[in-house]
């Protein structure tokens, strides 16, 4: 797929078409235009939901960042169900969301943001869980931290174990970091999918914060 990216240069704003493909065809350009128009529609819809619920101000001040990003994630996931983005273009897509809605996110990051630090991708992952659980775990900043650890995300059992610990003992992002790091380090070189539940629990018990 091809994405239509807004660029700011010396001569002002202009659009560029980007893709993992090297050569673009007129068909690619057309489909990028359609994709772009549809995404704009989704973003407008998100803005209107956020404003209606009064969880964001017209100056982009988020009153409840967790709820804001949760709604963004839900809507983006809905959009992605309709519009498939290839794996090769995923990174491009997440970066492409910045700078499109000054209400959701002010400004464009000066450099490309890795997938693990991308707010929109994090929101998309976050929205896969129920809002009830999400809220119980902690603030948006903590979620951004949790969702950066691959070893935690790779096995649902590990993820649930971490969430359970965080609900049981609520903590801030900084306070949760030692636990998250420890889990990540413990399973960095292990493929947990071949472990049965008991074997996994045994290993989780060995995690030292």
């Amino acid at each position: 797929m091809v994405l239509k990216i807004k660029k700011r240069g010396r001569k002002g704003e202009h659009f560029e078409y980007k893709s993992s493909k090297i050569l673009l065809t007129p068909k690619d350009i057309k489909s990028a235009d359609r994709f772009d128009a549809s995404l704009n529609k989704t973003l407008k819809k998100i803005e209107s939901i956020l404003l209606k619920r009064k969880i964001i101000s017209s100056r982009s001040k988020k009153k409840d960042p967790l709820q804001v990003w949760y709604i963004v994630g839900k809507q983006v996931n809905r959009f992605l169900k309709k519009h498939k983005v290839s794996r090769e273009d995923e990174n491009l897509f997440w970066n492409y969301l910045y700078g499109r809605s000054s209400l959701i996110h002010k400004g464009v990051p000066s450099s490309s943001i890795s997938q693990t630090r991308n707010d929109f991708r994090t929101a998309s992952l976050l929205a896969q869980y129920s809002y009830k659980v999400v809220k119980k775990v902690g603030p948006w900043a903590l979620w951004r931290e949790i969702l950066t650890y691959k070893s935690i995300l790779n096995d649902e059992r590990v993820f649930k174990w971490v969430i359970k610990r965080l609900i049981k003992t609520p903590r801030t992002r900084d306070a949760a970091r030692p636990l998250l790091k420890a889990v990540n380090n413990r399973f960095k070189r292990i493929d947990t999918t071949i472990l049965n539940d008991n074997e996994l629990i045994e290993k989780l018990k060995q995690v030292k914060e």
Partner: protein
Amino acid sequence: MSAKPKIFRQVRNDAKDIEAVADEYKTKLEHPSWLIDGLQKDAIQNSWDARIDKKRGTGWECGFLFKNFGDKDILCIVDKGTTGLNGTKFTDEKELIDILNNNQPGEDLAYFLNSNWSAKSGEEGGTRGRGKTLFLAASHDKKIFFDSLRSSDNTYVCGALYLDKDNQVKFKLNYDKYGEKILMELTNGKLTPLTQHGTRILIIDPLPEVKKAIKSGEIFSFISYSRWEIIKKYQAKIFVEEGNERKYANLPNWYEDELKDIPSKEFPPEIIKEGTRYRIKRLVLRYAPDQDLPELAKGIAIQRGGMTIQRIMADTLVHEEGMSDIYGWLEMENKPLEEEIKLNCEGPEHLDFNWTIKPAKYLRDYIRYKVRLFAKELKITMSEQARKNKAQRVAEENVLRSLIPLFKKLGLFGKQLGRKTKKKSTRGKDEPLRLSVQDIKFPRESRRINYGEKIEGAYVIPINDTNSSILVLIRVWIVSEGVTNIIEEKIINLFPGRGPKIGRESIEVSTKFKKGKYSFKAKMLSQEETDRYLPDGTKIEKGTKLYERINQNFYVEEDPPLGSGPFRFEPKGKDDKSYLVDWEPNGDEGYVIFYNEFHPRIKLILEDEERLTDYLREQTILLAFQIKLEEVIANNDKSDRDFSLLIKSKDLTSVWPLFLEKYSEFLWDLKS
């Protein structure tokens, strides 16, 4: 004088117009018998367009014969199985002008008698109504007679079209019994009116070269090589009668379906340019070295409306030895390719195309790509890899890398290629527990795999270089777009040394595989808890990833993306002073840039990496501008202001200064 000005009709010098039209044919046909060639083409096309059985042309016939009325020879062009000159029976000029301006199809009579008007449909061969001007050009007296029995109303019409003394082309005609009277007068009673539907054209006192070409039979070559398609498909009957003998044009042997000793390839119906609906019906390429291919058959015949419009010489498309022995033909789908190419790109004489505008440009690029593929398959062209030295390869890579921004800026490709520099390969010591994928083989070096082809040796061999055995799980799988397909998963006790093959001896790529990129992957996990450690200090426990570095990419039914840019280089040694660098579009994969290794300018620096890089880079920058200019013209693209203004100005002298300016800017940025 009254105050109101009178309105006059502009008077044109028709004698000059006839000359001008004839000159255009002469220029385009470029051979001494151009007049009879152009004449036969237009006469047959008009007749074929008027055939009653549009689908198969049943009952259609067209021919050339001589008559004599008194002291003058007459060339008769007769047909049958045609509709005749149907349309409104006009009786005065005002009525005629209304008919022509209404531009309705079916007004054959009015269009036949007038110039630069025609309302034929897109599927028909002619459209501009220039053919009959050539009939006048072929007459010494600049005079033709015609008669026709119309299928629409059985009306007989007869008349004369001629250049009058006042240099105006005029015509007279009448219908039914008055028309018969005209025929009597014009032919001194030597011709009887037509009794079958159709049209007859009599060229009065044809020029000597026309007579000679018909009497000598030279006309047959022109007919056969331009009308071979309808002769082949519909057994179309086109004859020449000389004395009492009537001979029919045959299908040239070169266009028979199967030919012994001539390798042939047919490309099936396909889209010629991604993202468009332009489709061909077929492209047939044949290679006939040492076969004395006649001049008229050389090149790839571009067919439209059952006739050959133009032949493109394969050696003008692909500059390699042996290309002149490739011939063939291309047929187009009517909509939209044939229709648009006729409307937008075809010359008014139906003898050539303007190849710089779309869709003709797309078509030529497509043919060029296929000719090269065909030549490679037949090994007419050599593998470029075999001819490169190390300095060349490095220089080419350097140029590619440095010119990506330029190609990007010119919009010649769109990819967010980073400026990542490849890490130098620093393969360390073999790990004590590892997998080997040593036997894997793909059908091509490029790792493209087509349906029906196989990946051989699609397995891994586990290796244990430690002193004791270990229980491991080995998983081999293929992944594409996040979808995983496990080929084999086994738990084995891996003893020191080499273990069994895990995977398959071969994997056939069937149509179940979607087109796209795939990865053949494998990993080895510990299946037991141990007190042993890997060299990096990781404890081996159940689940430990012992080895997971197997990753072999391949591409089903598509070529892999270009490694680092929108073009690639191919050295090409040619003993040709005029040949330095050149380029060709390479299907959907960008461009191939050729450079002449034998050219003294390049030969001198062929082993000097740095100088070759500089030289190739500078040449490629200029080529990039030329490519861009052609793209802009072909697509009527207005996105680049500078190029748009250049084209709008139609000032050829501005091309080079613009190129130089852009060249300078780019080099400045590159070197600063």
